[in-house]
């Protein structure tokens, strides 16, 4: 029985799909997990499907936990280790429950980071109601503006030029690693195009452009800052 979790993923059997999972990227694991949750196989195949779904999620948990912790500590400036542990589990449970919302056209990590940041902001609001505003939770400003501002501040010493070049290369590499829709949004933004124009050119909503742009920002900041 042919199995097609996505346009680019095709397998001849459950066994083949299960064997392939260790090679899958996070985005592919998420695709398989979401796909498996929507299938209604014949009774004899239910066990295989559940096994593949659970295995895909287990691998996602394994590969996400440390990176999520690092994100919460460094990018959100969460200093409470217990809270970091709780948040990572809450984020992964949300991932489990919202699998159908995953869009392979967006970066898996950008999406996950956005859920994590929102969870952290919610946690701060619960503990400090009315005290969480802009700038809390390490909320990023527009990353491209940030990079350009820093460039201007540094002036043109040989060291700063070399640093800028290095960061520029890191940025380019990180942009190239984004899914194509997100890459296009970032490139058009860099050309100075407004969200509304980008939305009409790419045939998606303006809100979606904004969401994908900010999710890309998380990935690009991480790539540059380490």
């Amino acid at each position, binding site marked *: 029985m042919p199995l097609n979790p996505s346009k680019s993923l095709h397998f001849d059997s459950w066994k083949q799909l299960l064997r392939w999972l260790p090679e899958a990227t996070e985005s592919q694991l998420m695709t398989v997990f979401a796909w498996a949750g929507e299938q209604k196989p014949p009774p004899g195949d239910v066990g295989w499907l*559940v096994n593949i*779904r*659970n*295995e895909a*999620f*287990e691998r996602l*948990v394994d590969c996400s936990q440390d990176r999520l912790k690092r994100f919460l500590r460094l990018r959100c400036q969460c200093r*409470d280790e*217990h809270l970091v*542990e*709780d948040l990572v*589990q*809450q984020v*992964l*449970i*949300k991932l*489990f*429950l919202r699998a159908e919302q995953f869009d392979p056209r967006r970066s898996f990590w950008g999406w996950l980071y956005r859920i994590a940041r929102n969870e952290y902001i919610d946690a701060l609001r*619960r*503990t400090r109601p009315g005290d969480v505003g802009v700038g809390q939770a390490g909320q990023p400003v527009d990353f491209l503006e940030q990079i350009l501002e820093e460039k201007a501040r540094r002036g043109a010493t040989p060291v700063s030029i070399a640093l800028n070049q290095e960061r520029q290369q890191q940025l380019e590499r990180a942009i190239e690693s984004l899914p194509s829709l997100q890459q296009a949004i970032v490139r058009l933004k860099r050309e100075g195009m407004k969200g509304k124009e980008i939305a009409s050119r790419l045939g998606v909503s303006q809100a979606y452009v904004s969401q994908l742009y900010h999710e890309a920002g998380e990935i690009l900041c991480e790539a540059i800052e380490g």
Partner: protein
Amino acid sequence: MNHSGNESPTIADPSVKESEPCPRVAELIDYVLGRAAPADGRRVAAHLETGNCSHCLRWVQQAADFRTEPFVDPAALPSFSKTPRKSVRSISVSDPTPIPENAKWQRQAFRDLEDRLRLLDET
């Protein structure tokens, strides 16, 4: 994957069987949400009932916050359904950090209370 080996050492209890490998996280979440197949649910419940796998207990506690319907098998989770739930943070005796007022936990506590009252009414 068995996570029990990473936990702090506990005194061996001869009545406790050699621990099974931990269920996968998806199985734990399905179990808490009442979506697990009966056989899987029994296996997860048996693993949790040993009570010495804080890794799985922590996942179960977190997932319980996402439950929207009453739990289908309260007897299978005595340590969660028969006693008021505690935050995972309160498990650590050495951690003196005060637990903040938390609307999410409060809502969950009320939901658990309602579930238990409903069960009492039914019996």
